[in-house]
Each structure stands twice: as structure tokens, then as C-alpha cells.
């Protein structure tokens, strides 16, 4: 969920944010020492403070996958490496496992915080522009990148539309007596089919209609299109890029 704002983090080039945060996320999986974790977390906290986003808001994203985090932590705890720390009935906790559990949980929390800081400070449009621009940098991919961005913006636009259609179909089929809430297993399957088939038919049909509308308005593909928003690389982006890469290198070697 994007929160508009005018912080230094918001103002960074979206391409840089995409690469930088991805780099940080990959790095946290390669970090081997406690110092490394400390430096990565410290850097992330500095970014959070700079972004002026309330930490509580970011923590909500951690809350949304707390169960996964807990699960991963608990499984590591009983993974049984190293010497026995204590036993409690059938549960045996080993010393090494405690360390592994802490590691996994702190990795996961870091990944969640990093990812949500990126999405909170960058709008979906900026991000899809960034994806297009980065992909277009690869040799021979410019056209493909443009088409992918086109697909993405149509898809973003039509998710709510199709969701509404799905709901209409569900209601229509229920009123015709489709066994949507059937207790029996086969009834449920029939209910699913009675929604799935019309939904797919509808979306295939919609796709043709949208394509016709695009062509009627003169869409002739990639050639000759100009951009409304253009991404510009600024001096502060260079500074930030150097900061991130030096932190990543530092963490990999300590």
C-alpha cells in the first residue's frame, strides 16, 4: 500500500529503490555473522526514519505474516543441531537450533520490512515504469519491456472490474440455484464450475473487446509512442546507490 509523502526515500529513483531493496533482501540471506545482521538492520532503520513512514504502519506488514514467521522459527527451534540445551517431555531444544531460529526469524522480519518500505514509498505506477525501464536496458528487450508494462497497466485496471464481474456471476448463479454453499463435496465442485466457466468466457470476451477498443483508438504497438512520465537519475540517487552497495559489500565480508 503506497503512502504518498515527500521524504528523501520517496524522492529516490524507483529503479534504484527496486534494485537496492532487492539487493538488501538477497544480501540478508547471505550474511553469516551477527555483526552483518546488526549493520543491515541499522541501515534499514535509518531508511525508515528518513522515509517518515510511521514504524507502526510498517510493522503491520510483519503482523500479516506473523504465522509464517512463527512457523519457520518453531521448526528451526526443534531442528536438532548442536548439543542439547534442555528437554521438556518430547520437545528437545538444541543450542545450535536456538541460534538458527533467531536467524530465520530476523531474516524474515528484515525481508518483510524491506519490501514494505519499498512499496510504501513508491507508487505502483512508478514501480511498473521502473520495471519497464530496467528491463528495457537489457539488449533487445526494449520492445518487450514496453509490451509488458502495457499488459501490466491493463491488468491493474481490470482486476477490480473482473472482481465485480465475478461477484455478479456468483450472485446470478446462486439465485439460479447453483450449489455454491453445498455441504457435499461434489456439490461444491459443481458450484465452483458454475462460477469458473462464465468467468473465463467473460474474460476471453472482454480481452477481445478491449483489443478492438485499443485498435480503434490507434494503438499500433510499440513504435512511435511517447511517454508522459519520464524517469530521471539525479545526484542523490548516485549517493544512495553507493551507500547501499558499500553496506552490502561490508555485510558480506564481516
Amino acid at each position, binding site marked *: 500500500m503506497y503512502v504518498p509523502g515527500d521524504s528523501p526515500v520517496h524522492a529516490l529513483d524507483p529503479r534504484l529503490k527496486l534494485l537496492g531493496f532487492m539487493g538488501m533482501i538477497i544480501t540478508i540471506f547471505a550474511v553469516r555473522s551477527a555483526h552483518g545482521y546488526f549493520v543491515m538492520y541499522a541501515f534499514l532503520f535509518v531508511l525508515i526514519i528518513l522515509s517518515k513512514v510511521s514504524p507502526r504502519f510498517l510493522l503491520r506488514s510483519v503482523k500479516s505474516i506473523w504465522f509464517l514467521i512463527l512457523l519457520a522459527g518453531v521448526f*528451526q527451534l526443534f531442528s536438532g543441531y548442536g548439543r542439547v540445551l534442555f528437554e521438556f517431555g518430547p520437545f528437545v531444544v538444541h543450542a545450535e537450533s536456538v541460534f538458527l531460529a533467531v536467524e530465520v526469524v530476523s531474516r524474515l522480519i528484515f525481508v518483510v520490512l524491506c519490501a514494505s518500505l*519499498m512499496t510504501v514509498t513508491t507508487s505502483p505506477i512508478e514501480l511498473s515504469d521502473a520495471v519497464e525501464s530496467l528491463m528495457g536496458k537489457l539488449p533487445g528487450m526494449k520492445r518487450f519491456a514496453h509490451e509488458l508494462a502495457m499488459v*501490466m497497466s491493463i491488468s491493474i485496471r481490470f482486476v477490480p472490474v473482473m472482481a465485480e464481474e465475478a461477484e455478479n456471476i456468483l450472485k446470478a448463479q446462486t439465485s439460479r440455484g447453483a450449489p455454491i454453499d453445498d455441504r457435499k463435496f461434489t456439490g*461444491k465442485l459443481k458450484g465452483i464450475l458454475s462460477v*469458473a466457466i462464465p468467468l*473465463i468466457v467473460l474474460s*476471453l470476451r472482454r*480481452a477481445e473487446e478491449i483489443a478492438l477498443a*485499443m485498435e480503434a483508438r490507434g494503438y499500433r*504497438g510499440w513504435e512511435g509512442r511517447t511517454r508522459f512520465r519520464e524517469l530521471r537519475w539525479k545526484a542523490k540517487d548516485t549517493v544512495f546507490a553507493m551507500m547501499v552497495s558499500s553496506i552490502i559489500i561490508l555485510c558480506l565480508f564481516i
Partner: protein
Amino acid sequence: MKAKEITRIALFSAITAILAQLRVDIGPVPITFQVMAVMLAGLLLTPREALLSQLVYVIMGLIGLPVYAGFRSGASILFGPTGGYLMAFPVAAFLIAILQKRSQYSTLLSFLSTLLGLIPIYLSGWLLLSRYVGGLERAFQLGVLPFFWIDMIKALLAVFVSKAIERYKPALLYEIRKN
């Protein structure tokens, strides 16, 4: 790409986002229809369209649109314990589409190719999960075994849907399958 291809890809990634939110409780496990959308993309679109529709779906979630199951999004899901399944969606859809095409759209072979398409999903889901729960064996018990039967039913449903469309609305598929 032609405009029609672009819109078909776009709508199938939108459909994946919607089916991922649709939940039905069969037995104790709540199931979503995310995987069914992957299968349907494979069964109905051309290999390239199938691949791209799922790629766009994964990218949309990655850049923060709440399209993953449970309205979640972001790299934390994609690289989290259960993200491995998502990562393989494009490959799976592509594989299903190609096998389907090779099999001349026969019903039994379509079903088999849908099941084969599950393999990359399970494989990458399993491997990534094992990084988090400690050990391949445990990840297999948690992340592969319990879902196999349900996914088989989803494959059946997906094949049923695609055959129904083939039979009753052949005009919609004409352009996709003419070559």
C-alpha cells in the same frame, strides 16, 4: 505483440489475482484457486501468452499490488517460506500450454499435462520452504504431500472448464489455436 495478445495476457493475470482471493473450505484446509488460474492460463492460451500472464501476475504482486492470496503482496511473500510456489507459476503455465498443444488438445493428455505442470510449482515451492523449516523431508511433509490430492481435483476442474469452453464457445478460442 498484437493488441489482442496483450489484452488476453492482461485479463488472465487479472483473473489469477481474483481467483487467488476466492476461498472455499473443503475439509480442514482452506483452498484458493490461484493454481487453477495458472492451469487455466496454460490450458487456454498459447504458450507465450500463458507464460507472460503469470509473469505479469508475479511481478504485480512483487511491486506491491495486493494480488497474492489473502490480498498480500511484496517481496516478503515471494521470497518468504511459501514464495517458491509463486515463482514457478510462469514456468508451470508455459509447460502446460506447450504440452497441451503437443497433445492436440485431447482430454486425457490435457489432464496429464496439467499434472506435469504442477511439478515445477511443487519443486520450487518445496526447495524454498526447506530453507525455512529446516530440511527437505520436513518441507515435503508440510508443503507438498497435503496439497497433492487437492491440486489433482483442481486440475480436473481446470480441464473440465477448458473443455467446456472448447465445446460450447469455440469461437473464443479460434484465434488462439489456429496455428
